[in-house]
């Protein structure tokens, strides 16, 4: 390009694009980047107004060093996704100041595109995706500005054209998005740090789960292909806690066994798919007993699902669950030992009570039922704010305070069962969820976090039992918020907003609709990876034949381009150039009589020469040429009729001459 300066509208659009590119990144950029950005933006404007000069070389070097040091300090190093993105944004900001030539502008634009792509790694919601169209539009407009011939154009035509280009690109993009083969990661890359994710953890003290339960943040959604099971049956297992040290419950050995124990499917299975929010933990959520056809995770020794990598981005998986399955009918020694483990001492009252229960009840099942009856009849209170208990937390809870949360009930029951010689463990996960009837799916939030108990009976295997149900059945049947109506003040903002919406009918409908849209986005766009793609293609085409598929995609792209070309070129609107056609016929007619136009000979010169050679026809020839010239060059309106008439006269006379010369 001969012009090296950057046109004004390019500069305008680049500055706009910079704002739009950086905005979504602000959440994870260090604050000093904003200061750098403002300073550089002001400088650039001053350069444009000729009030400042370009930064000198030493200052650029210094700025790079300072940025490097800043990134190092803010992110504890220069490696990692966050540090990389900060460096990218800093380069994007600094390059804009020192940009002089069009080539520099191209570099800035490309950096901008890449920065937009990296923003998806942090935030990939529907709104973020739609918003990112704006910086892309501005960057394209800047690219168009670079190509324009005038340095001072108006900025709007460029952005209109950019919008047109984007719209025309959408159909091709959809074809590519659906059919482009998805492969797994080629190599592992640093992941975005999952910021402030709340959720279940490896080990929990009673207070942790109560705190978790105060958040309205989404944990996962599950959509069922058949009818939605009743709420009370939705026990989403995440982990089991087998080890108790007197204060905390933690994962035991069988939750690290990489092999599923024996289990027999029974009853009707449930088919559903789960879209999980990033949790930063490697386990997945499912109803008992899950099978994953996609093989995303391993069913572990305690029937929980574990993946090799933590879930750092939204994850979608399909599950088939057998709720009535018989699990581990024969208990290996090691598992039995773990299921009976108790600290050597502590909680003497509970141990004594367990011994008494064991003595008075003939079977383990009877002990369990007695315990449940106790929870149901004794004055227990379900609360998120349990009062502090002493050193022996089980004794304190069972016999003194009798106020607690699900983990208290589950922990206490497991303790007593174990003391009575019944293998048992605490299961944590989520219970229930918000049913969205319209979409046939369940949204499960952090406040649905729950803990329950499973115990082992010879012949029946592991059996689930929920002591909380005995104390506060509304927790299971309706939800936590209904279970503790007077403790609303404890919930965090997201949970409170949720509660407020619930009270206003139409607003709640709106919220549910929005949730549905988001869920669709997650399922169909974000979750559209390998298996989903295969499933979709199989549904559409029956089978997946890669060769046919590839040919089909190429064909679809070609047809798309052809349709677009037709729309763009509108060949049916092509005006025929009647004047030129007429002139060509005129030349042909004269050529038949030996008068050929010389290269470079204009119409008038040619006409005059022809008139000399054919003096009898001179008048007709010159009349045509005059008409042609007048229409063609003198800006007279095209009048094809008059031109045709003149041409016909020439041809007629030439024919007559030909006939006469033959007659001679």
């Amino acid at each position, binding site marked *: 390009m001969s012009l090296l300066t950057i046109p004004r509208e390019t500069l305008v659009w680049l500055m706009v694009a910079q704002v739009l590119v950086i905005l979504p990144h602000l959440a994870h950029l260090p604050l000093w980047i904003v200061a750098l950005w403002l300073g550089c933006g002001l400088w650039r404007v001053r350069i444009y107004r000729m009030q400042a000069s370009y930064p000198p070389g030493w200052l650029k070097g210094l700025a790079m060093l300072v940025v490097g040091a800043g990134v190092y300090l803010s992110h504890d190093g220069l490696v990692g996704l966050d540090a990389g993105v900060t460096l990218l944004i800093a380069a994007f900001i600094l390059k804009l100041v020192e940009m002089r030539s069009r080539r520099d502008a191209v570099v800035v634009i490309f950096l901008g595109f890449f920065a937009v*792509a990296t923003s998806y790694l942090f935030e990939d919601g529907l709104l973020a995706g739609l918003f*990112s169209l704006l910086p*892309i539009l501005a960057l394209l407009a800047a690219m168009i500005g670079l*190509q324009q011939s005038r340095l001072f154009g108006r900025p709007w035509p460029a952005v209109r054209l950019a919008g047109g280009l984007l719209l025309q*690109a959408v*159909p091709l993009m959809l074809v590519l998005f659906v059919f482009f083969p998805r492969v797994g*990661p080629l190599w592992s890359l640093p992941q975005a740090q999952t910021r402030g994710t709340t959720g279940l953890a490896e080990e929990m003290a009673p207070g942790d789960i109560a705190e978790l339960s105060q958040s309205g943040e989404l944990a996962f959604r599950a959509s069922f292909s058949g009818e939605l099971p009743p709420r009370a049956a939705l026990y989403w297992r995440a982990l089991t806690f087998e080890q108790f040290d007197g204060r905390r419950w933690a994962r035991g050995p069988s939750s690290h066994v990489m092999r599923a124990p024996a289990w027999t499917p029974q009853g009707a299975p449930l088919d559903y798919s789960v879209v999980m929010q990033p949790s930063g933990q490697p386990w997945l959520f499912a109803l008992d007993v899950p099978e994953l056809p996609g093989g995303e995770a391993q069913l572990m020794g305690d029937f929980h699902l574990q993946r090799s990598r933590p879930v750092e981005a939204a994850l979608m998986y399909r599950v088939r669950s057998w709720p009535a399955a018989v699990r581990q009918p024969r208990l290996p020694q090691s598992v039995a030992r773990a299921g009976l483990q108790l600290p050597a001492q502590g909680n003497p009252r509970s141990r004594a009570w367990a011994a008494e229960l064991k003595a008075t009840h003939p079977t383990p099942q009877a002990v369990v039922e007695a315990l449940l009856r106790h929870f149901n009849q004794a004055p227990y209170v379900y609360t998120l704010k349990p009062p502090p208990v002493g050193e022996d937390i089980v004794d304190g809870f069972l016999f003194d305070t009798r106020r607690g949360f699900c983990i208290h009930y589950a922990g206490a029951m497991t303790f007593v069962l174990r003391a009575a010689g019944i293998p048992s463990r605490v299961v944590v996960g989520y219970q229930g969820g918000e049913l969205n009837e319209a979409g046939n799916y369940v949204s499960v939030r952090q406040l649905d976090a729950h803990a329950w108990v499973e115990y082992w009976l010879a012949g029946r295997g592991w059996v689930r039992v929920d002591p909380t149900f005995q104390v506060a059945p509304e927790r299971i049947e309706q939800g936590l918020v209904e279970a503790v109506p007077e403790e609303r003040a404890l919930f965090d903002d997201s949970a409170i907003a949720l509660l407020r919406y619930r009270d206003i009918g139409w607003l709640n409908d709106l919220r549910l609709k929005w949730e549905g849209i988001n869920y669709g986005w997650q399922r169909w766009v974000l979750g559209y*990876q390998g298996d989903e793609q295969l499933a979709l293609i199989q549904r559409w085409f029956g089978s997946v034949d890669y060769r046919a598929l590839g040919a089909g995609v190429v064909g679809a792209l070609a047809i798309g381009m052809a349709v677009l070309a037709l729309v763009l070129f509108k060949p049916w609107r092509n005006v025929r150039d009647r004047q030129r056609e007429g002139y060509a016929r005129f030349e042909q007619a004269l050529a038949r009589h030996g008068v050929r136009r010389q*290269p470079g000979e204009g119409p008038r010169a040619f006409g005059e020469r022809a008139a000399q050679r054919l003096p009898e026809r001179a008048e007709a020839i010159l009349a045509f040429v005059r008409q042609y010239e007048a229409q063609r060059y003198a800006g007279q309106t095209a009048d094809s009729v008059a031109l045709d008439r003149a041409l016909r006269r020439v041809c007629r006379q030439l024919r007559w001459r030909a006939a006469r010369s033959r007659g001679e």
Partner: protein
Amino acid sequence: MSRFSRHRDRWLDKRIPRAKSVVLSQRSIFILPTRMGVAFLIVLGLILLAAINYQNSLAYAMCFLLGSVYAVAILHTWRNLAGLRLQSGRTHPIFAGEQAHPWVRLESRSRAHQAVALGWQRAAMTLDDVPARGACEIELALQSERRGWLRPERLRVESRFPLGLFVAWSWVDLDIAVLVYPRPLEGEAPTVQGGEGDEEGARVVGVGADDYRGLVAWQRGDSLQRLHWKAYSRGRGLLVKDFAALAGSDLLLSFDALGGDPEARLSLLCHLVLAASDAQQRFTLQLPGRTLGPGEGAEHQERCLQALALHGAPAERAAA
């Protein structure tokens, strides 16, 4: 000229024949990615890698969106040239060593054509916009070196609009031909070449005060150089010095009478023709095998200069 470019030119001559007016169509437009277009693909590749490694659907979508924009840009860039009519105009003759300024008219038959560049060298292209159903004229510069017909090579017309990712171009031969007269070289006009038996004229050159005949009233068309300013200042009105135009004593400018290198002789003759015309002298130009005149006036001068320009050249363009 290399063999390749000869082949290319022959191919182009068939594909886009020479014409005063050319409408760019699919036969004549070529399109390829620019360096920027290749760099853009590399950026898309990086975004695709990020999408694959992070399993990020939005990054995939963005990569595909920009890839589709890339494909759409092919059509837009191509369309920006398609249907454009280029037409060359008549260019005035120049003297060797001067710059000719042929102009080309770009005319749109339907849509606007933005940022169309025109030129002989890629480094020096002239950029302009053609409005919808309108036209613009671009003046080009062409350096002449030798006398004769100056016929530039094919003209490159290109466009990178809208995104600069592709360049669509065509090589058109708009039949631009500039007549280049010899460079006028001032020099001593040799007086009679005595002793050679050359009896054709009394003098080779004879513009001098000797022929001064008197003052006559100025008429439109008389050269201002011959105005008698002194008489004017004395209030005698506009008078011109009348030089002898005696029958038989016309100026004879003869190629054969001059010595030296033929090109130098032509240059000198060019100068003499101009001088004689300026002096409104009747003169005859004698070239080997051709005699022009005697005559005077602009038309005669033009014919003489043209003969000088084309002396020795094949007579292909005499008609033009």
